[in-house]
């Protein structure tokens, strides 16, 4: 994986030739230095803790809250979901990625109990004081997948949501859920599509929840490995992600609703939807690259033509986002940054104290770190795609290497637009 192959090909003439050569040598889009490694691992840890909440709550909403029309308490995780075993951690794991416990992360539990106030008060009051995990961010990611899903062309998951089979499964679940509720059943008869679309959204809740169920233990494990001194370079971190992606690629993506003690298989596991193609890749495309224009940055005015007509031209994901206005009105990533702020490892807090405004603008500093780390994750996805579709980096055949190069170049073409932060993250001055 680390064999340098760039010598066998003439230098690339691409704008990002340096980065392409680095990718060809098994590296990441993010420069390899200890400072970057510290930042990305620290932020993986800070991201994984709220993510542990996100995936549990996403599954809870998809499975238990379901079509509740007055879902006031959908962010109040019940005990079962806090104790729900992650399939990739703990002793009874299907595939043990993280060596820690399978139940909720202790730091998350401590935060849910005491919060920023550092006081044990009923959860409702924590919620009302906004002393909580910003679950809205997870829902925004989910909606981004839902809305871009149809447009992205790959995967069969979204197409399945329109099949008669899916509609029949959903119909059974809807009828069971509203059993004994003539008002809702009557509405369902009048406007069946309204409820069906809600169930589709819930299927995406499940999809994203299952995606993050994998990512949280991966990030926890990387943090542990780093603390133990077993992750020493950025490419190592990226390769850990690549290996994780392949190990987990075939895990099922499904949607089960739990209604009155009975499980309704809206998307059964037997449909064969898999983690890599139906969750990971659509997620990266929808959330890292596209999402939706920030209300505080772009005008949705149709005459102003600031927002592209085509969904494929959307470029508002974290790889393109301007992190400096985080904390301002109309900038959605603020929600995530605020969540991660609570769980920063001490070495990262110390690191931020040395720069810019110290703790005062930590929200932005960690946002930029997050952007760096997501470039590393995207690099892992690009390398994984290259491994799956093309040739190894140490392939002796120059034609194969050329194919690899064309693939890398086409991937990096997406970062040519001025908003892309790929140029910025090459320098440590961007913080």
């Amino acid at each position, binding site marked *: 994986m680390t064999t340098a192959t760039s010598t066998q090909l003439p230098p690339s003439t691409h704008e990002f030739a340096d980065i392409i050569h680095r990718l060809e040598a098994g590296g990441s889009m993010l420069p390899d230095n200890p400072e970057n490694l510290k930042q990305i691992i620290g932020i993986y840890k800070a991201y994984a803790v709220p993510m542990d909440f996100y995936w549990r709550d996403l599954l809870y909403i998809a499975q238990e809250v379901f079509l509740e029309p007055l879902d006031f308490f959908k962010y109040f995780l019940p005990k079962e979901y806090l104790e729900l075993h992650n399939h990739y951690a703990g002793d009874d794991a299907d595939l043990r990625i993280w060596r820690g416990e399978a139940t909720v992360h202790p730091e998350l539990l401590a935060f849910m109990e005491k919060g920023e106030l550092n006081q044990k008060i009923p959860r409702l009051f924590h919620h009302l004081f906004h002393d909580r995990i910003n679950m809205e961010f997870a829902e925004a990611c989910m909606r981004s997948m839902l809305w871009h899903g149809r447009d992205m062309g790959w995967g069969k998951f979204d197409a399945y949501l329109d099949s008669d089979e899916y509609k029949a499964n959903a119909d059974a679940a809807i009828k069971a859920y509203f059993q004994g509720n003539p008002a809702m059943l009557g509405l369902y008869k009048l406007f069946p599509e309204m409820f069906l679309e809600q169930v589709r959204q819930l299927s995406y809740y499940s999809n994203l929840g299952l995606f993050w169920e994998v990512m949280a233990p991966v990030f926890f494990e990387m943090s542990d490995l780093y603390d133990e001194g077993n992750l020493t370079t950025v490419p190592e971190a990226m390769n850990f992600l690549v290996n994780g992606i392949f190990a987990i690629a075939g895990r099922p993506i499904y949607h089960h609703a739990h209604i009155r003690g009975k499980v309704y298989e809206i998307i059964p596991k037997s449909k064969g939807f898999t983690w890599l193609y139906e969750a990971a890749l659509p997620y990266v495309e929808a959330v890292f690259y596209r999402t939706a224009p920030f209300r505080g940055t772009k005008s949705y005015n149709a005459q102003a033509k600031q927002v592209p007509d085509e969904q494929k031209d959307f470029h508002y994901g974290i790889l393109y986002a301007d992190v*400096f*206005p985080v904390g301002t009105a109309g900038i959605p990533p603020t929600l995530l940054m605020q969540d991660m702020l609570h769980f920063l490892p001490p070495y990262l807090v110390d690191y931020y104290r040395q720069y810019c405004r110290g703790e*005062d603008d930590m929200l932005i500093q960690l946002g930029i770190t997050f952007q760096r780390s997501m470039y590393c994750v995207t690099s892992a996805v690009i390398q994984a795609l290259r491994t799956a579709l093309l040739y190894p980096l140490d392939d002796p055949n120059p034609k194969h290497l050329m194919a690899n190069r064309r693939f890398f170049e086409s991937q990096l073409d997406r970062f040519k637009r001025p908003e892309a932060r790929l140029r910025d993250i090459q320098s440590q001055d961007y913080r």
Partner: protein
Amino acid sequence: MLSLLIGLPLVGAALIGFWPSKGSPTLFRNIALVVALGILAWTVAIATQFDLASPGMQLPENLPWIPQLGLSYKLGIDGLSFPLLALSAFLNCIAIYGRGETVERPRLYYPLIFLVNAGLTGAFVAQNLLLFVLFYELELIPLYLLIGIWGGQKRGYAAMKFLIYTALSGILILAGFLGIAWLSGSSSFDIGSISTKNLSLTTQLILLGTLLVGFGIKIPLVPLHTWLPDAYVEASPAVAILLGGILSKLGAYGLIRFGLQLFPEAWAVLAPGLAIIGVVSVMYGAFSAIAQKDIKRMVAYSSIGHMGYILVAAAAGTPLSLLGAVAQMVSHGLILAFLFYIVGIIEQKIGTRELDDLNGLMNPNRGLPLTSAFLIVGGMASAGIPGLVGFIAEFMVFQGSFSVFPVQTLLCIIASGLTAVYFAILINRTCFGKLDNQLAYYPKVLAVERVPALVLAVTIFILGIQPSWLLRWSEPTTTAMVSNIPPSNLGQIAQDLNKFAP
């Protein structure tokens, strides 16, 4: 009591100037601040002694000094001078507090500021024309040095321009005063003993014209204003606060005290012309400010515009308009000090004052959010948004002047709208928009640096919703002053003028 008010800053100046040990800038800043707060406290003590119902001179002090010259040390305050005294004591604290730790050569800096303060205080309380000129000239050299040493890049030019203009202003005022005393045959220069009743209207007009040009330079009125943008822009924020906040009030004060009070008849004759000059100032200030690209320059031109209102109000000479003029002096002093302080912070943190380079300062984490909010409050106060002190003053000016000079007043109201225009430009370019990611690594504004702005903002706000705290000092005095002015009857004036035609 009033002597102490002049004496305290002199004591402070001597204390810092002759401090035995070398000392740090912070030490001298703290000493200066204690003295300045002492002056403020003493001003409050005077306020408790102030009789709100009396229109005349209060707390008089009188010492014959050089009787051969008619110079006596005669002090006193009334409703016209007291609000300005209080403003001066208050802004002096702000000027000394603001960013004082970083000042170079503190042993020269603080004594000079105190000298300016002593000069201003003395001029506001002096009841003798020569004594007034003495104090008026006293703040000239310290301010020249304050601009020339601690100013910006073109400080030498700005300071020299300021010095020449102000010196000329002093000469004209002195000439006017000598003329008043000699021509009226008065033996002393005490204000109470001088009467211009016996002078012919022509003489009165000439003398008033001399004073008008002399004080007009200081206010400044439009053709005489060109020293102002340079001096304000090149001066450091603290000095700009002194210059714009208080010194310009000295001109307006002098014009009302000596022009309107000593020459009520000639004033009535000149009033329509004065109103036009005022309107020209107001319009000129507003249009020039719109054209500027430097935020400090915009604020400086806004000052010209706002001082024009005072002239219009004083020319109208109704009880309400004169009260409005006093209110406008105080309100403009507060607002200008507020704006200069904020512009100083922005320049210090961002390193530029250019409208084209500033952007997105409202950003809560990387910008200067509270400073931006203050800038918006300051801009709104300056533009006369109700709820802030600027509106009270402007509205009284408009209400008081409309019956006398309707056209001029309407033009002032339009200019007030133009004020909103350029402050909207300023705020839009400075506070709104997005930060430049290449440059936006600005240092944060410390809590201690916010204190003066916060104090000024609270004052501006409180006086805006409780204006009687601003107006009650002056009402009897201004009403009494106006009663001396004969009604401005243009036909009558024309006849009077004809009588003196050669």
